[in-house]
């Protein structure tokens, strides 16, 4: 009988209930149809591979169950594990130093440490060989006969780590920025030391970001084609490419492709299990106070030294070697700048096309999932993420099969290439757009409706402006990756259509290091600004 205000004063309860109310809404038909179409397009390559293999199961099974295949699987997984471990070992301290300490010039270090991401691994591998290989700069400089071999596992491990660790660094930095510093204050107040606090309070909150970043690195390594070829490491993509080039029996190649996709799906599944098991949520209201930077004191010297060493090895040396080869090429007259300009135009066209198509498709999927959650939209979202599990080389092969058999008119067209690239990199754009949408409370859109604006108007005047940063970031990610993409471009580009990436590859494979240096430099100049925007976004926006 004493039911007073307190017993019912549960203001938090209706919120959760209301979000479940939203789940019962139906999306507008146009958006839903667009989403289904996009999902179908993304699934198309994988589905077609399955159809090809199912139509002629014998050779595909033989190849897939070959003992040789087992060896390739082991080697590829081993490399992925090694690169993931070292990437985390590098990214974790750098993320902490550049977000939470008073490291001098931490914004600059953050940018510099993220920049190696724009160096395509095949460029990195070629520079590694050109600098340290049997005929490299180091041997000439030292004047010795032979250097220890840099080919094989160790070479691939080092090179892939140097150019993929930013994939862990980026999510870690943004996760660190999001952590409520009051939690650390609370832990300290309860008698935990700084290290204990980091381990018991900060690390658990970083797990989702670590899992996401580590997963990206592992998937990246497994689908990498250029670096492993140049460093002569016999990984899965290599096996597929050789099979594709050397035999007319494409079902065997398709079988290999499916095995690789299954491996990557398994990895994705493990990653999602880790993330959901470790998911953290921010409790409590209001915006977090900006954290008070941790004073490094004398430790800033070793910290600066480590950052400098990393930037030197992963950024300055590669770019330096590139500039050296480029100047050699120009002075020797073997490089045509007008040719390079044409290549750049082709790359820009492809990249921008993929960014627009991928960005729009990602926007549709993000809106469907963020505003109309339900079984159908969840399925569409999963399909949208299929690109994660499909290496570029597999997407390209599947589309070649599809085009040659079903729609020959599309075979070796620019449209096909842009389609492949946007499908492949679509998941990269869904992330930032979805995150931006999650920041926009549906209540804000409802308020706009109540103020007399129709749904389209509300999207134009409220939702879209609030999503602008996320859409730009998503499109930029697609762009950066599309212009770097090698195997899909090699396989799908129209005959005679050369991009910066294919030119670098071709010239390198002939050993013309000077000729590939200018396109590689241009590629870096185009890719760096969007990447800079992405790494700075978190600190500048809001």
């Amino acid at each position, binding site marked *: *009988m*004493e*039911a*007073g*205000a307190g*017993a*019912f*004063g*549960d*203001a938090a*309860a*209706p919120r959760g*209930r*209301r979000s*479940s*109310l939203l789940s*019962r809404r139906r999306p507008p038909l146009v958006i839903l149809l667009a989403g289904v179409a996009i999902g179908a397009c993304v699934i198309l390559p994988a589905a077609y591979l399955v159809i090809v293999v199912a139509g002629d199961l014998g050779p595909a099974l033989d190849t897939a169950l070959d003992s040789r295949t087992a060896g390739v699987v082991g080697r590829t997984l081993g490399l992925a594990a090694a690169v993931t471990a070292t990437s985390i070992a590098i990214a974790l301290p750098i993320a902490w130093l550049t977000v939470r300490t008073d490291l001098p010039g931490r914004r600059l270090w953050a940018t510099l440490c993220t920049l190696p991401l724009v160096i395509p691994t095949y460029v990195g591998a070629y520079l590694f060989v050109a600098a340290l290989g049997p005929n490299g700069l180091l041997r000439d400089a030292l004047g010795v006969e032979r250097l220890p071999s840099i080919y094989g596992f160790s070479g691939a491990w080092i090179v892939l780590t140097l150019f993929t660790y930013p994939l862990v660094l980026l999510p870690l930095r943004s996760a660190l920025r999001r952590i409520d510093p009051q939690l650390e204050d609370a832990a300290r107040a309860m008698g935990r030391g700084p290290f204990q606090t980091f381990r018991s309070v900060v690390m658990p909150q970083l797990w989702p970001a670590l899992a996401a970043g580590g997963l990206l690195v592992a998937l990246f390594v497994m689908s990498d084609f250029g670096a492993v070829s140049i460093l002569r490491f016999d990984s899965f993509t290599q096996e597929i490419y050789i099979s594709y080039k050397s035999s007319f029996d494409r079902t065997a190649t398709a079988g290999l492709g499916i095995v690789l996709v299954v491996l990557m799906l398994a990895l994705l599944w493990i990653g999602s299990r880790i993330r959901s098991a470790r998911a953290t949520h921010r409790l409590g*209201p209001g*915006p977090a106070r900006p954290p008070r930077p941790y004073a490094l004191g004398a430790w800033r010297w070793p910290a600066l030294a480590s950052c400098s060493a990393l930037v030197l090895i992963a950024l300055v040396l590669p770019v330096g070697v590139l500039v050296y080869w480029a100047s050699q090429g120009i002075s020797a007259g073997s490089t045509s700048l007008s040719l390079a300009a044409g290549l750049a135009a082709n790359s820009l066209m492809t990249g921008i096309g993929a960014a627009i198509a991928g960005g729009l498709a990602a926007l549709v999927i993000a809106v469907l999932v963020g505003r109309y959650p339900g079984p159908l939209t969840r399925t569409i979202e999963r399909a949208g993420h299929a690109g994660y599990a499909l290496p570029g080389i597999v997407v390209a092969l599947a589309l070649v099969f599809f085009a040659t058999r079903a729609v020959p008119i599309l075979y070796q067209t620019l449209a096909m290439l842009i389609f492949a690239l946007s499908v492949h990199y679509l998941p990269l754009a869904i992330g930032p757009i979805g995150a931006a949408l999650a920041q926009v*409370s549906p*209540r*804000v859109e*409802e*308020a*706009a*409706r*109540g*103020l*007399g*604006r*129709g749904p389209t*108007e509300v999207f134009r*005047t*409220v939702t879209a*402006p*609030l999503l602008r940063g996320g859409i730009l970031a998503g499109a930029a990610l697609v762009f950066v990756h599309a212009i770097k993409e090698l195997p899909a471009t090699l396989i799908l580009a129209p005959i005679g259509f050369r991009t910066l990436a294919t030119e670098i590859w071709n010239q390198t494979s002939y050993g013309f290091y000077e000729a590939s240096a200018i396109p590689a430099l241009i590629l870096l100049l185009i890719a760096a600004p969007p990447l800079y925007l992405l790494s700075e976004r978190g600190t500048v926006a809001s």
Partner: protein
Amino acid sequence: MTVVASAAPLRLSGLRKAYGEVPAVDGVELEVEAGSICALLGPSGCGKTTTLRLIAGLERPDAGEIEIGERTVNAPGRFVAPERRRIGMVFQDYALFPHLDVAGNVGYGLGRRPDRDRVAEVLALVGLEADARRPVHELSGGQQQRVALARALAPTPEVVLLDEPFSNLDAGLRDRLRQEIREILLNAGVTALFVTHDQAEALSIAETVAVMREGRVEQVGTPEEIYSRPASRWVASFLGEIEVVPGQAAEGRVECELGTFPAEQVEGPVDVLVRPESIAIGLNGPDGAAEAEVVNRRFFGHDQLVELRLRSGQVVRSRRLGFPAWHPGDHIRAWVDGPADVMPRDPVG
């Protein structure tokens, strides 16, 4: 300065909304007079917020009608989109547009080229005329709440809906803002319906209170009626502390341990519902006052809560001013001094 809204009455009838098997709003009937302030009061989960969202057009009802003035915005086969309802809504978390400044938020509902004078007028109404160009995230909670109200009032809506408008504010600010917002709403002359789970809030702001429970409106009345003549034990206990003393009714009179008083239309065993502030105590009482012993006392400064054991063993509470102080063990007299409600004995308990 014309900030007067074209207030219209609001009428809900037979309003129903279920989510799957669970009815959230289960036949709500309610009328709000033009230009008055009505509180929809109930515990969380009683369907009051869903009712508000149905009125705003943010959810579609399964059945029932909603009328705003002469316009039927909801009826079988008829659903007016939220943007055409001429309703202002103030959300619990304000839902201000983060990419617009104060004036941008307030002018949003005025079309693509908002009338600046109107924006200034409404900002003046809420006392924020100096802050027109500030980004909304710089504002305090109270200021954000007033921007949200100004934004809702700017397009001269006929009805303003407020969803737990004060729940995100701290206690001191909440008290002051309640009165401010009440003044603003009355000055604007708009019909206002606000949802709250806080009894004091409902009783202090509203002219009419509708108490909701499990998807239905259990009682509608003035704050005084609701408080002193609750329609059910549930309403009585939801609105504040209540003591239930068993009694016997016969020939227009009720006898119980705390005294005898008139009661019509009941006969036989009854419950007498008395709020602690209506139970008076003293060393000597009027005729018929009960003998009691003080068993506990809690002192709150301006008042005190005294627990008494009656001769029957029942313990009741009496809320008195802070002085004189009573002490456990004091032998005193207790009687009813104020409204008491009589209901037939609840067969369950």
